[in-house]
């Protein structure tokens, strides 16, 4: 019989390789916060209260550009909508948890914690699922907090001509490429990316680019899917 602690440690171990992606991402998010005039406390606030890297980074950039607050928060919601899929997919495994444990599970639900847990649940029915999930999720959480604070402490000392702000789109690029699974998602990418660029170049006010691009890009994906291009 597997014990609770061994499943927890298995979760920590499974998340290990993913920490190599989380750590630089966290550093970038911390550096970006300070570069946009936010404090180290703000950076830690984003990491602990929101705990969603891509949306944190996007919000920090929008705050730096003085975008309207509704756009800042609305963009974060759009970016985090994908976790609703994870929530639906993992919910059956968490159905018997207490309300408090469900709250912890919801708080820790990231791309990475979801991916390692759902893979394990599919392979092994004996696992203490919650322990394994908390092992993965909490260790990812810990590395994220430490690296964003480290990035924020480091951030103000970086020379601007080195262009560290370019690390943010590179992180998004690393998140984008694995989502390109078929023609329909390729269409979402191409249309979403070009529409966002068009909105930026046209100088449309209020930084609506991500929200508009998400809507049009998703419609493009659905269009290609309905044409049978989802090969």
């Amino acid at each position, binding site marked *: 019989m597997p014990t609770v602690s061994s499943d927890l440690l298995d979760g920590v171990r499974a998340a290990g390789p993913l920490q190599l992606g989380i750590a630089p991402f966290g550093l970038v998010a911390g550096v970006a916060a300070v570069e946009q005039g936010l404090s180290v406390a703000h950076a830690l606030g984003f990491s602990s209260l929101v705990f969603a890297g891509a949306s944190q980074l996007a919000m920090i950039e929008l705050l730096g550009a003085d975008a309207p607050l509704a756009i800042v928060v609305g963009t974060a919601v759009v970016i985090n909508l994908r976790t609703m899929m994870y929530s639906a997919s993992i919910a059956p495994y968490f159905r018997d948890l207490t309300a408090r444990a469900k709250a912890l599970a*919801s708080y820790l639900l990231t791309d990475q914690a979801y991916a390692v847990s759902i893979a394990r649940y599919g392979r092994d029915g004996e696992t203490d699922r919650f322990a394994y999930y908390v092992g993965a999720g909490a260790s990812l959480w810990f590395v994220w907090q430490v690296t964003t604070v480290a990035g924020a402490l480091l951030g103000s000392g970086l020379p601007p001509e080195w262009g560290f702000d370019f690390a943010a789109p590179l992180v998004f*690029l690393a998140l984008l490429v694995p989502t390109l699974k078929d023609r329909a998602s390729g269409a979402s990418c191409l249309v979403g990316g070009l529409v966002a660029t068009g909105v930026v170049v046209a100088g449309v006010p209020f930084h609506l680019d991500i929200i508009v691009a998400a809507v049009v890009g998703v419609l*493009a994906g659905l269009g290609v899917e309905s044409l049978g291009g989802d090969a």
Partner: protein
Amino acid sequence: MPTGYDSATVWLVIALAGVLTFAIRGSFIYLFGRIDDVPPTVESALEYVPAAVFAALVFPALLAPSGDLAVSVGNDKLVAGALAALAAWYTERVLATILVGMGALWVLRFVV
């Protein structure tokens, strides 16, 4: 560019985004038993959100880094981004993508 918002406003954004993000993540974990499955149309739409959203965060930064369209080899971010995209494709690693992209940018800026 440093933000023009004051500290309290930034905290308000953090709190709002935190609550909404938690609600999205908790949605089906809490609703399970009442709504067991996402409606198929919603599921299909959600499937395309990551590609559209991440592309919207990447394309303008490469194609129009200063707000104007700049599709040329003189745009160092576009060239570095294209090389980083290859790294992302072949390694699927965040670290490798950042290292290749930043490395290429620095070579283009300080060496070439």
